[in-house]
């Protein structure tokens, strides 16, 4: 069993079939697993494979779902259950997603991996190797994501799906592809499928650094009620219920409020999600709302010289909030050797963010304006969007099922349409009234992708090759197309003027653009020796571009990427322990990369970038101990073609030099120790995150960061009490760093603007404690 495990990791994860074997990653529980059901046996393969030898195509499929969605084996007397009823089939091999393509593809079971409960769904991403999630400005701010050397900012380089729902927000004025994952409470997160690099033909828009699929799931059946109270006035309550037999069917709500760790970081959010999973079909729907203050950045020199506190804000009018309403459904089946699935979703989002990065710098008198002083740079960015998407997939085995090679073809189509109203306005510091419209557009974007591939599986190897055709089409109504217009006798101070040198005009302009691209993708996995497997994948990825930057009628360029990786995995186990290790090297080349520009509050083109790196990850279970550890090293440089517009106006990125802010070394470990008696259990966790010195502009480096989080929980029967302490060492560190020019007259040491880009930081949260009480009445 042990020796054949690595290869069958992939086979067993790629299928869902009625009566599929259930096994735990706990070696003790594996002892009880009948050999005929264990991965790596002929019986297992037979039970997992469908009749034609193919597997059910994965469109966010929950691989642990029985056909009718039921799972009755939960042990109600077991404190801290292994979530075996939820994730055991995955967890036994734990590290590969349902249909791995790239060498770095990994599936993370959140309940099992987390040493410390993540405060929200975005924080859970840190459990995946090579992923760093940071936040600037408080709990409500958009995430800042790093993956494999990509500074994916607010998510622009990673395609996110929640239960099949596309999460990246097209055309958000704060960042194309912005991601807000706080659509579900962290407790409702089952697994993360992390696929670094575009090696799977099904990966579509935004899959540049990779893609991450979040699968909901509640670990335990019955009622769930919990309350948390902690530092900085933080309070949180959750209330939910999970079907006793259908583990994919649940409802869960969350309310959260906090005063925040410093000035202007308070806020609240509410989230509700309901899911019905009947195996062959499922529907998930949710509503989320949030409203937070936002502290923004502080200048490092102002902090060092005592003009502002590390946790203060230069402008207390900053904030961020969102409404989300979404529904996603999936229908799947198998007939005549054909496995199929259709996923469809609809979402309505309204987001706003008010930030003032630069203070009082950008409001120089412009053409067409009467004389004025700097009125303040507070930027109010809003977007209201509707999104619909459909994703259909097919898979059919071909050839002789009894032959040496198992051939299969797979194909799919994906279409997504977004309708976005986006508005950016500058607000006066004195009264908050808008004084200039920076952007006012109505965007419609269509994203259509067709893909196909063929796979061959033989004795000890799997090879896949395929391709994707990707088209984007844009229709942009610019309602403020005429700006900065001046000529003699024009009326001054017109916002979006309706006249120009040639006379009266409409302030609107309509533009269209479209583009088409092709992406080959391939992967191979070869068993080199018992327990050892070589994996490799390569492909091209796409990202749609910010439509507001398009001029009319052009062949819309893509931001695209070439990626390749090569990895080696080693899995071994015994009666008392289990270990899975993986070493993956990767390389990427990106054309038309995007970087965030604080002056404009949006992404700007930044030419090409290149990255190489390596990730070493390890998962070890030994008795009550479980350790998940990863370390990623990355080398990222700019290509030779930084855009002239960028080079002329910014100096913080240089051709051939390191990409700033990307951590060259990132390490993370999650350790848990679980002890169980019949009705009492203890669970202790320790999570450590280490970020090596990061390159900053002008050959400077940041300080290294080490944070420790710890938790302890005691559960007896239905009652669970826990204490979590984050940033145990109370490290004062910069969660995010960036470089831009800013000047706040009340804070600086000069009477005149500081216009040279300077180092700005947003601090990580100081030490915080959270006490939680959770009830599981079903087990009373």
């Amino acid at each position: 069993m042990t020796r054949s495990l690595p290869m069958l990791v992939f086979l067993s994860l790629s299928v869902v079939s009625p009566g599929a074997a259930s096994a735990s990653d706990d070696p003790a529980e594996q002892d009880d697993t009948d050999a005929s059901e264990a991965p790596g046996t002929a019986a297992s393969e037979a039970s997992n494979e469908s009749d034609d030898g193919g597997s059910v195509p994965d469109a966010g499929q929950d691989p642990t779902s029985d056909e009718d969605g039921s799972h009755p084996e939960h042990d109600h007397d077991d404190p801290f259950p292994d979530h075996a009823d939820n994730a055991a089939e995955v967890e036994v091999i734990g590290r590969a997603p349902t249909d791995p393509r790239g060498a770095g593809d990994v599936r993370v079971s959140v309940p099992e991996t987390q040493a410390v409960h993540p405060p929200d769904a975005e924080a859970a991403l840190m459990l995946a190797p090579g992923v760093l999630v940071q936040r600037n400005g408080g709990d409500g701010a958009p995430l800042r994501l790093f993956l494999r050397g990509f500074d994916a900012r607010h998510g622009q380089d990673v395609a996110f799906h929640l239960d099949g729902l596309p999460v990246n927000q097209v055309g958000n004025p704060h960042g194309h592809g912005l991601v807000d994952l706080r659509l579900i409470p962290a407790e409702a997160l089952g697994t993360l499928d992390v696929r670094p690099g575009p090696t799977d033909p099904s990966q579509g828009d935004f899959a540049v650094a990779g893609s991450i699929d979040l699968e909901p799931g509640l670990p335990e059946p019955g009622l769930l009620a919990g309350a948390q109270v902690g530092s900085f006035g933080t309070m949180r309550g959750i209330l939910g219920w999970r079907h006793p037999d259908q583990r994919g069917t649940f409802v869960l709500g969350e309310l959260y409020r906090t005063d925040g760790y410093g000035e202007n970081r308070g806020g609240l959010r509410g989230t509700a999600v309901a899911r019905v999973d009947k195996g062959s079909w499922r529907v998930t729907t949710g509503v989320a709302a949030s409203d937070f203050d936002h502290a923004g950045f502080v200048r490092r020199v102002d902090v060092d010289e005592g003009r502002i506190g590390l946790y203060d804000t230069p402008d207390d009018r900053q904030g961020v909030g969102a409404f989300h309403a979404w529904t996603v459904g999936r229908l799947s089946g198998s007939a005549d050797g054909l496995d199929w699935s259709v996923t469809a979703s609809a979402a309505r989002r309204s987001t706003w963010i008010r930030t003032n990065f630069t203070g009082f710098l950008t409001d120089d008198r412009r053409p067409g304006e009467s004389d004025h002083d700097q009125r303040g740079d507070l930027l109010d960015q809003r977007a209201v969007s509707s999104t619909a998407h459909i994703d259909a997939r097919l898979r059919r085995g071909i050839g002789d099922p009894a032959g040496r090679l198992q051939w299969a073809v797979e194909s799919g189509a994906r279409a997504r349409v977004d309708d976005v109203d986006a508005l950016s306005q500058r607000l006066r510091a004195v009264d908050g009234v808008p004084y200039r419209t920076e952007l006012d557009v109505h965007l419609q974007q269509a994203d259509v992708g067709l893909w196909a591939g063929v796979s061959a599986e033989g004795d000890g190897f799997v090879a896949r090759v395929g391709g994707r055709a990707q088209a984007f089409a844009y229709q942009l109504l610019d309602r403020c197309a005429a700006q900065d217009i001046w000529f003699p006798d024009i009326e001054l101070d017109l916002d979006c003027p309706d006249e120009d040198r040639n006379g009266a005009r409409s302030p609107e302009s309509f533009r269209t653009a479209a583009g088409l691209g092709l992406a080959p993708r391939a992967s191979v996995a070869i068993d080199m020796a018992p327990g050892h497997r070589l994996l490799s994948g390569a492909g091209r990825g796409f990202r749609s571009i910010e439509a507001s930057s398009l001029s009319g009628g052009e062949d819309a360029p893509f931001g695209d990427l070439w990626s390749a990786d090569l990895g080696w995995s080693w899995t071994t186990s015994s009666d008392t322990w289990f270990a899975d290790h993986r070493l993956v090297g990767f390389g990427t080349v990106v054309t038309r990369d995007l970087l965030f520009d604080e002056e404009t509050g949006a992404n700007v083109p930044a030419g090409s970038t290149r990255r190489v790196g390596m990730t070493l990850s390890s998962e070890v279970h030994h008795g009550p101990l479980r350790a998940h550890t990863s370390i990623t090293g990355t080398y990222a440089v700019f290509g030779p073609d930084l855009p002239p517009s960028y080079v002329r106006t910014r100096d913080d990125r240089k051709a051939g030099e390191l990409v700033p802010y990307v951590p060259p070394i990132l390490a993370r470990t999650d350790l848990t120790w679980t002890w169980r008696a019949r009705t009492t259990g203890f669970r202790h966790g320790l999570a450590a995150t280490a970020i090596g010195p990061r390159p900053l502009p002008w050959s400077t480096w940041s300080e290294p960061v080490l944070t420790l989080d710890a938790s302890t929980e005691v559960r007896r029967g239905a009652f669970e009490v826990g204490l979590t302490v984050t940033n145990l060492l109370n490290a004062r560190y910069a969660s995010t760093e960036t470089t831009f020019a800013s000047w706040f007259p009340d804070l600086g040491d000069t009477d005149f603007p500081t216009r040279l880009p300077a180092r700005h930081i947003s601090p990580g949260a100081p030490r915080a404690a959270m006490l939680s009480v959770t009830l599981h009445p079903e087990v009373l």
Partner: protein
Amino acid sequence: MRRLPLVLLLGASACSTSTGGELVNLTGQVTPVADVGTFQVGDWTVELDAADLAVGPVYLWSDRASLASGDWASLLVPTPVARATDPYDAGRIVGELPHQVRVDLLDPTPVSLGEGTGVSGPAGSAEIWLEPADDGPTLHVAGTATRGPEVLPFAADITWQHPWVEDNTARNAILIRRVRGLILDATLDGDATVDVGVDPRAWFSAEALDALPDVTPNEDGVRIPGPEDTTGRGIDQGARQLVDGPWDVRLR
């Protein structure tokens, strides 16, 4: 796809260990021209009794501004960069001395402009702000202009805001108190001193002084030109003149 291995190989072989460039420390000083004394402008002999100016802040730009470089063709066909429609655009800020200092231009002793920061690389031009000051007008000049038998005491106070800046000069109003595009053509390759030389003699032109007799003297017999007369306008424009004007910015 076929180019990928080659690109990756090249990427791995040309390792960089920094983000490039470096921060440098700047110090600034304003150096009046020694011994202004008495000077000749056209038919006029001018003797200054007072000439002081509030100078700063000073910013260094990476490039020459199109307007200052005399590259008029680039104004007609702008370089395809952001904000290229601004003829004063000179690339990016590469140094700053964000302070203001009042300088007695008749005293040749250099006056410190404080400390600032810069980044290594080319510094093509400089920008000097002539902002309102707390201790008086931005520019104050007084003296006597003599032409033959005409001996005309004069004094002028200029602060570049209303009425010296008209409200409807929409296009360039902000630039009036910012002397942008002073040619520097230097390279910042380490800590440096920005030396701002000022010659008040360049504030005066023959045309402006020829109109001085038209300015009505006050009860003390001193002519005080303002923004509405030729002499006042002449001093205003002379003080802000880019080429062959009062400014001489150097890096040391």
